[in-house]
C-alpha cells in the first residue's frame, strides 16, 4: 500500500477556514511574548489608575 493510500487518499483539500485557523495559531505563536508585554502594560495602567477599576 502506498503512503498516499495509507494516509487516506479520499481526503478533500484543506478547508479555507482551517487555513485561516492555522494562520491565527501561527500569529498567536509569533506574538506569544508580546501577549506578556501587553499584559504588563495593562497592569501598569491599572496600577497607575489610568484604567480605573470597574
Amino acid at each position, binding site marked *: *500500500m502506498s*503512503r498516499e493510500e*495509507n*494516509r*487516506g487518499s*479520499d*481526503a*478533500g*483539500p*484543506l*478547508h*479555507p*477556514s*482551517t*487555513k*485561516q*485557523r*492555522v*494562520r*491565527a*495559531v*501561527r*500569529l*498567536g*505563536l*509569533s*506574538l*506569544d*511574548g*508580546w*501577549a*506578556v508585554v*501587553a*499584559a*504588563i502594560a*495593562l*497592569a501598569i495602567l*491599572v*496600577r497607575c489608575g489610568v*484604567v*480605573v*477599576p*470597574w
Partner: protein
Amino acid sequence: MGIGTNSSPGIAVTGVAGEDTISPASLDPVRLVPGLILLFVIGYGGKWIEAAIRRYGTTHHHALPNIEYVLWAILIGLVIGNCFSGQRWFKMFAPGIATYEFWLKLGIVLLGTRFLLRDVIKLGGVSLALVAIEIVFAFALMVVFGRLFKLGPKLTALLAVGSSICGVSAIIAAQGAIDADEKDSSYAIAAILALGALSLFSYPAIGHSLHLSDRAYGVWAGLSVDNTAEATAAGALYSETAQKAAVLVKTTRNATIGFVVLPVALYFATRGGHQFEGSKAGFLWKNFPKFVLGFLFFSALASMGPRVFSASQIISLGNLSRWAFLLTFAGVGLRTNVQELFQQGPKPFIVGALAEIFIAAVTLALVTGADRFVGGL
C-alpha cells in the same frame, strides 16, 4: 534545528498549507481594525443577549435557563462565519479575526492574577501528574490506532502530539521538527480542529449529566480538550471556576510541548539516518510557550497582596482578562466551519475521534479518582 535535511532552521521550517511564519512587524494595524471590530461586536452581542434574557426573566417572573455569553458569542460567530466566510468582501475581516489567539494568550496571562501562587502550585502539581499520565496514554493510544488504521508514521506522530499536548500549536511545532510534509500536517490539523469543535458542545453536556463539580470538570476539560481556545471555551461554558481550572491545567499541558516534540524529532532523525541539528536546550526554549511564564509572573504578583495590586485592581485585571477571552470566543465561532467536518480524510478523523473518546474516558476516570480519593482537586 530539527532534522538535518535541506530544511531551514526553526519550527516554521515548512508552512502548513503554504503559510509562512507571521512576523509581528508585517502586521498592518489598519487592516486589523475591521476584524477587531467584528470580534468585539460579536463578543459584546453575546453579553448583551445573556443580560437581555436574564432581564426578561426577572421582569416577567419566568425561570429562563441562564445561557452564558460564551455560548452566544460562539454561536453568533458560527452563524456569521459559516454564512459569509466564502464571500469576497468578508476577507477584509480576516486579518483582525486572526488575532484571536493573541487575545487568548493575553487573557490567560491576566487570569494569572486570579490565582494565588500556592493554589497554582497545589493544583498545578496535581495536574502535572495527571498531564504526564494523559500524555503517555494519549501518545501510546494514537500510535496503536495509527498502526491499526495503517496511517503513515509521521501523520500518526502529528496526530499523537496534537491530541496529547496542545492541538494545532503542537502539530505546527512537530511538523518542522520531524520534517513532515504539508499534507500530513493538514490532515492532522483538520482532524484536531474538527474534534475540538465537537468537544465545545459535548463536554458541557457530559459534565452536567455526570454532575461533575466545577473544579473536576475544568480539570477534565483542560486535560483532554486539545486546543487551548476550545479548552478555555469549554470551561467557560460550564462556569467561571471551571474555566479557571481548565486554563491552569491546559497551560500545564502546553508547557510540556518541547519535552514531547524533542524526543519525537530525535526518533525521526535517528530513523531517517539524519543528525538532529542545533542545541536541544535551544529547541526546548524556542518551543516553550512564553505566556505560561507570564501567567506565573502575574500569579506571583497577585500573591504579594495589596503591596502590588489592590483588591479592586485585581478585579479590573480579571475583567480585562474576560474581555480578552470574549474576543477569543468570537474568533473561535467565526473560524469553526461546519463543512470542515466533512471535507477531510475520514481515516485521520476516525483515528483521532476514537483516540479522543478513549482519552476523554480515561482522563475523566483519572479526574474523578483524584477528586474522590486523593483529597480533592
